[in-house]
């Protein structure tokens, strides 16, 4: 297909810790064709215009979750968004909101990674079975209970969409709570009680005020807002069950 080459203006918010005290915008003229992604545009800048520009990417096919950036203020995967959507006009690129900027478009994800490790992000068998006893069986209906929540690629777009996380990183946040629910909703799992402690805590689902933007920006239709908010119902039931079980208020 013969493509007409056009040029788009891309303004990148840069931050070079060794010389910038705060982020500054730098504009580049980038030639592009209709089949080029924003990631390819950024790669063009690095290859031909300014080799010092830093950003993350790997798969180029919306599955590794490393290329999340703010594109004109919206959190998106740079590899699955086309430059042509922003033409004519200026495309403003900024590192994912609500995370500290390490350099240019690279954010510090350690808070997310730490939280990911804290939720027992694996199945703890409800009843241990030996290899001879065979696999754990699950009906399609049981699988459907957690399926969508298992589609998360840890891209953190939902964190960049969540003002509550931006205001306080104590909040566990949408993606991790969705993942937590993915394991709690799995019929084979037996660690629900441990995870409910995180759900019920101040930093858990109650930190959410149902802005709902997380579900809007999620590239995998995980619907983290749903996972968080139906766990408010679970958390309330949990509280009352323990209340009645102990005959008094449940501590936390």
């Amino acid at each position: 297909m013969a493509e007409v080459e056009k040029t788009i203006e891309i303004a990148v918010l840069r931050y070079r810790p060794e010389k910038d005290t705060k982020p500054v915008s730098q504009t580049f003229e980038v030639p592009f064709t209709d089949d080029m992604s924003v990631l390819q545009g950024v790669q063009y800048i690095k290859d031909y215009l300014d080799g010092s520009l830093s950003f993350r990417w790997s798969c180029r096919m919306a599955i590794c979750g490393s290329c999340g950036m703010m594109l004109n203020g919206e959190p998106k995967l740079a590899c699955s968004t086309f430059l042509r959507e922003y033409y004519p006009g200026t495309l403003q690129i900024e590192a994912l909101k609500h995370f500290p900027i390490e350099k240019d478009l690279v954010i510090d994800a350690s808070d997310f990674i730490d939280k990911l490790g804290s939720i027992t992000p694996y199945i703890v068998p409800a009843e241990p079975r030996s290899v001879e006893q065979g696999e754990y069986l699950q009906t399609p209906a049981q699988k459907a209970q957690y399926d969508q929540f298992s589609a998360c690629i840890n891209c953190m777009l939902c964190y960049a969409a969540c003002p509550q996380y931006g205001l306080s990183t104590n909040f566990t946040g949408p993606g991790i709570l969705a993942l937590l629910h993915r394991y709690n909703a799995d019929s084979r799992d037996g660690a629900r009680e441990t995870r409910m402690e995180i759900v019920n805590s101040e930093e858990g689902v109650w930190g959410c005020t149902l802005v709902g933007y997380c579900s809007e920006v999620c590239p995998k239709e995980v619907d983290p807002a749903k996972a968080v908010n139906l766990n408010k119902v679970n958390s309330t039931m949990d509280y009352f069950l323990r209340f009645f079980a102990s005959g008094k208020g449940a501590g936390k």
Partner: protein
Amino acid sequence: MSARDPYVRPMTSWWLKNPFYVRYMIREATSVFVVLYAFVLLGGLASLVKGETAYNAWLASLANPLAIFFHLMATAAALYHTVTWFRVSPKVTPLLFVGGYRVPDGLITGVQYVIAAVLYLIIFTVAWT
């Protein structure tokens, strides 16, 4: 020595920076009108307890143009809240399946709109006649 110096961006006036946030803030702000309206109703109840003159005075106060303006504003706020709340309500409902198929969020919201519309109609007809 580490050259790291991560930059944390400020959150000042965050809610103005995305139309989605603005709509959310309006949804939250509508609750102010709901509270104020609850006080108006409470005043009505209190006057009813006090007797006929007090109640009539309360009714008359509602005819004040300012009171009418407030009620129009409160109606608009309540409508906005209803519409947007029903839209997010599927987020609170557990995953529903009918005949093995997931009930879509849009249907959950739609059914609530229909129920609300029917109820409003009934209430208006009863109040009018």
